[in-house]
């Protein structure tokens, strides 16, 4: 029973992490149709932004303030990753719209450069990011069942990011313009929307969310130049399984993969669990090639 509750929680927790890393990609790949292989590196940039913020706090802020650094790091990680994402869009991706394979190669190259850049600046070894004290430890539900605060925090963070994105895309005028451009670029342009500005903005938002994911990942895993490469495959897996172009799909994809991964891993081993998840995804995509939630528009028919 303990094991069951714990594993349900673990499944949810893995899903939330998958969702966080896939959300940014859902914007750039799902909405804009850009295969951004540098997405993992944007996550890495968010993680290093957190590391730098931490060090600045250690060097310049009074010691009592240290635990606040993580809250400060979240918007910084978002900002830095969004800025770099925006630059990437302006100088490179803008010229490659409608050419998915070219953008795949180009962003992959950019990803490798960013990795090497991180290695040059921060060195090849992992850097240590210590979590704030208020996230240490866990909530004891019953004897033997502990829900780590960090995992609870990540679940809460994902919920907030998801809510903000929903509000932005469906409830603001700038979100409406974004949807208009993604669905019919030339028509939106005819109606006076600056499609270029919207593209840049959208890409920056997707990248910024990757930055937040990087910030959250400092709580659970290693922070090194190749951080992004661990997560990029999972992120694409979630978006493709979920169905391109729909937020709901991304959420379902992340939940499905996270839960099944935990389930398989409990009864087999980590390696076999992952293989089983892939087998299920391949089988599912044979049956429903457009993923869990397919977008219904005329342009796709």
């Amino acid at each position, binding site marked *: 029973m*303990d*094991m069951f509750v*714990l*594993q349900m929680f*673990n499944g949810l*927790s*893995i899903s939330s*992490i998958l969702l966080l890393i896939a959300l940014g990609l859902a914007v750039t790949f799902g909405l804009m149709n850009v295969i951004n292989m540098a997405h993992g590196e944007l996550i890495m940039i968010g993680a290093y932004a957190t590391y730098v913020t931490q060090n600045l706090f250690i060097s310049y802020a009074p010691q009592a303030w240290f635990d606040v650094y993580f809250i400060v790091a979240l918007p910084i990680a978002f900002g830095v990753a969004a800025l770099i994402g925006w630059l990437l869009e302006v*100088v*490179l991706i803008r*010229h490659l719209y409608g050419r998915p394979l070219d953008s795949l190669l180009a962003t992959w*190259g*950019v990803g490798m*450069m960013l990795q*090497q*850049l991180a*290695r*040059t600046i921060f060195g*090849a*070894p*992992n*850097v*240590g*990011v*210590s979590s704030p004290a208020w996230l*240490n*430890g*866990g909530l*004891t539900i019953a004897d*033997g069942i*502990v829900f*780590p*605060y*960090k*995992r609870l925090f990540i679940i809460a963070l994902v919920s907030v990011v998801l809510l903000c994105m929903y509000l932005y895309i469906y409830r603001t005028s700038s979100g409406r313009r974004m949807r208009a451009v993604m669905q019919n670029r030339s028509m939106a342009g005819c109606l006076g929307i600056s499609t270029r500005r919207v593209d840049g903005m959208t890409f920056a938002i997707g990248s910024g969310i990757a930055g937040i994911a990087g910030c959250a990942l400092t*709580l*659970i*895993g*290693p*922070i*090194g130049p*190749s951080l992004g490469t*661990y997560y990029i495959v999972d992120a694409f897996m979630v978006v493709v399984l979920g169905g391109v172009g729909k937020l709901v799909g991304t959420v379902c994809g992340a939940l499905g993969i996270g839960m099944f991964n*935990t389930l398989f*891993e*409990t009864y087999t*081993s*980590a*390696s076999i*669990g*992952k293989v089983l998840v892939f087998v299920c995804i391949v089988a599912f995509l044979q049956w429903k090639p457009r993923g869990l939630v397919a977008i219904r528009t005329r342009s796709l028919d």
Partner: protein
Amino acid sequence: MKKRTVKLWSVLLGAVIALTGCVEGGTPPEASGSDGAGESTSSGEPIKVGVLHSLSGTMAISEVSVKDAEMLAIEEINAAGGVLGKQIEPVVEDGASDWPTFAEKAGKLLQQDKVAAVFGGWTSASRKAMLPVFEQNKGLLFYPVQYEGLESSPNIFYTGATTNQQIVPSVTWLLENRGKKFYLLGSDYVFPKTANQVIKAQLAAEGGEVVGEEYTPLGHTDYSTIISKIKAAKPDIVYNTLNGDSNVAFFKQLKDAGISSEQLTTLSVSVAEEEIRGIGADVLKGHLASWNYYQTTDTSENKTFVEKYKEKYGADRVTADPIEAGYVAVYLWKAAVEKAGSTDVEKVKEAAKGLEFDAPEGKVTVDGENQHIYKTVRIGEVQEDGQFKELWNSGAPVKPDPYLKTYDWGASLSAK
């Protein structure tokens, strides 16, 4: 249209410049230093040696600092007059964390550069890839990392520990001091799997019990399920053979699951000072490791070594077991060459038999039979400052026994 093309080209050009800038920034500054060293006092042609490690890719994390230690040793020897009155000229090659590249670069060093010896490798996969190259070309490789044993090549000197100098004594110590129930956790490749076979044979013979065994892919980062399984199995000890980055995720998540080092002993064989920096000393505090050398090892040779290493590479750098083994390898080769009076591989091998050297870890001796070295075993506990406190040591250097022939239970392993 034309304007756009120009812009694209300028972007591409910028990118290329940025990339080459990065690559240049990444190459070791020693390369230019060695040229200068070649012109100093001593006479005659310099002696070339190869330094072959992963300076890029996933293993760069570990191997760059070993390369640094080897370069330091070469520099020291050159400053003291070199070998046989000649300067040593290092030829640095990048194995790029790719095993075929290791084999290819080893071939290049032996055939084209005609180096007298090569210092290099980290993973067992890279060593296994280089082994036939060294045997065919009759070259000489110094391999500086602890490994899974069950190997001894006439063309390789092993300056890291084999299983009976690290794993086997630590299992005995754990059985005596911490408990009988073992949970084996490792990365899914050759070293952890072989090491765990040795551990299982030993536990069966010495009255221990295996309550669980798990392998995760290299680079795996979510250990929540495995931690649940560990909780359910209630072991006394987690014997950790995870490699690389996975250790960061595992230990962080273990702590968050509310399992402290007081409730559960973990002993790692691939977590040293360098790794502690990335994981965080507060997370690892109280956990154990088994090695032959720690930065805190109390010998006068070590004090000088740590001082010199920090002076050259920065005060925030740390030394660790494989770093020390790389440093010692260069000095052992030098001693053997001087004793042989030649850099000829066969003569050097003959001269190396029984050679002694006062290493930072204490006295080491080359075993004439299997070309491993006698090493002292040390079990250490991680302290708050990221350094180890020694809990136990073997007292005297342990004779290397890669095939575990001296153990009754070892017979079945070496037969395979």
